[in-house]
């Protein structure tokens, strides 16, 4: 599995980039979900979020999942193109697959890449 070192990870499989404020779902999450067929971002630019607030709804052929804010802050950008191309979450979860950007807040209780990899391996068995 792929978990870039510069990102922080939530137990519910979101990543947060402390440098840019970007939020998305991890490679592990997209792989578990399998082919993603629908994405709806539930928050708007300018909205103030607390940690754990639902920010998006993602559906794959297997399941439907809520995505939660891994950090607090004001929504400074929303990836509007994502709903047109939900498969981006599968092909590029850490790049083009970003969901929203947050500013002016603080990260929740997040893991670093190593900790997250160990956490995911623990779940595989």
């Amino acid at each position, binding site marked *: 599995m792929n978990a870039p070192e510069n990102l922080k990870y939530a137990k519910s499989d979101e990543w947060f980039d402390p440098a840019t404020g970007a939020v998305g779902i991890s490679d592990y999450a997209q792989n578990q979900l399998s*082919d993603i*067929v*629908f994405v709806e971002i539930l928050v708007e630019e300018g909205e103030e979020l607390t940690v754990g607030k639902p920010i998006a709804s993602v*559906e794959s*052929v*297997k*399941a439907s999942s809520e995505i939660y804010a891994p950090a607090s802050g004001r929504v400074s950008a929303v990836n509007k193109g994502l709903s047109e191309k939900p498969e981006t979450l599968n092909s590029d979860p850490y790049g083009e697959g970003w969901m929203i950007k947050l500013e002016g807040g603080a990260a929740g209780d997040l893991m670093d890449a190593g900790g997250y990899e160990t956490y995911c391996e623990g*779940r*595989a068995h």
Partner: protein
Amino acid sequence: MANIVEPTIFELSSPGRRGVTMPASDVPTTDLPPQSLLRSDLPLPELAEVDVVRHYMKLSTFNYSVDGGFYPLGSCTMKYNPKINEDACRLPGFLFSHPLQPAETAQGNLALMYEMQEWLKEISGFAGVTLQPAAGAHGEFAGVLMMAAYHKSRGDTRRVKMLIPDAAHGTNPASVGMLGFTVVTIPSDPRGNVDLEALKAACDDTVVGMMLTNPNTLGMFDEHIEDVIKMVKDCGGLMYGDGANLNALLGIVRPGDLGFDVMHFNLHKTFSVPHGGGGPGSGPVGVSQRLADFLPSPLVDIVEEGDDEIAPLYGFVAPKHSIGRMKAFHGHFGGGLVRAYTYILMHGADGLKDIAQYAVLNANYLQARLRGTYRIPYDRICMHEFVVEGRFDGSDVRALDISKRLMDYNFHPPTNYFPLIVPEALMIEPTETENKDTLDRFADAMIKIAEESQTQPELLHGAPSTTRFGRMDEVKAARELVLCCWLPEGYSDQ
């Protein structure tokens, strides 16, 4: 067999073909409505009767049904539906009655509804039952409405949280969302029970109640059910029971006795009303004494007592603080209630108990046969269903591949990817109607498929290969939503 495609009924259409020839009119003609109200772009198919019959006859042979084979679709309780149900619901007295006719002229129907209410009360241990809800989730909605009305009637307006275990059916949070309550998810412990520590932490005076499926979607009877119920009640909450898995408990455990306040029945699961194909379902709801005044209106009751000579007079009554109607008329009467009534009558009290015992025995037999071949994450005596992981170490075979391969062995696949707390879940519910030979054939196929996943994984990835159609492109079907085979004039497909 493969790839024989039947055209759609629209493709079979040919201008001028028809099923009946209209006789010459022998009544005065009248003018058509103005031209602006008529449309000519409705492409109604034109075929002879025989072509229509053959078309649908052919399509019906493409189908897999419980009348055709084993259907272990977990949590759906796809039991065989006895054919005497069909006779009963076609009796002229049921078939030709109208919901608007005066109650005095439909006494047989009302007597059946009254007895059905009484029987469901006896089976479940509840004080009152409504037959109105159209299906399970509709029953949940009715139940949650009553819970909300109860708290409101006491001026207890701070309660906004509903506790729902992560092993619940997805309809539970959806029903709660309909009322604007907040869902708090309670995790399961390693034995598949409600995690008592997490429950304790969530219990406070803002709790509306808890929605618990018992046995849950792992097929596990909660080992601390009494503690769970006590904890929720101690903080002033009400207990909702999701009756989807009632088949495991019939005649053995009564949810009302356990302390549940409200529960919906799925007549289309437990009581052999046909299931699937979109319905109609039927989702009566039972409630404890403290919710009885809030039941939907009307209920059927005896309005004039009878005696040895004269039958009682049945009529409709309204509970004191009723939440109102859940449905026009009286629920799914002929399609649901009459069939379920027949089923209960045919089995009797002992027969209902047998149903639960054989359902649980069959599930445990299958679980025992698959143990060692498939990983069973919550491995203890199960109730009416159990969940295995559809994956193997060192193999890229997934639950979906196993499901598709089962079709090559002429079995309907189990529910897959549910419950969400088991990776690559395969949820298997054989039901009580299956004999040992069928269970063995299914177990043999599952074990053979596990071998194939090591020796010939391409067989699984490419499955099914012996069915009329091969693997469907589920991703394309979900991403490109084309629901219509023709487009009206003026619409473009872009």
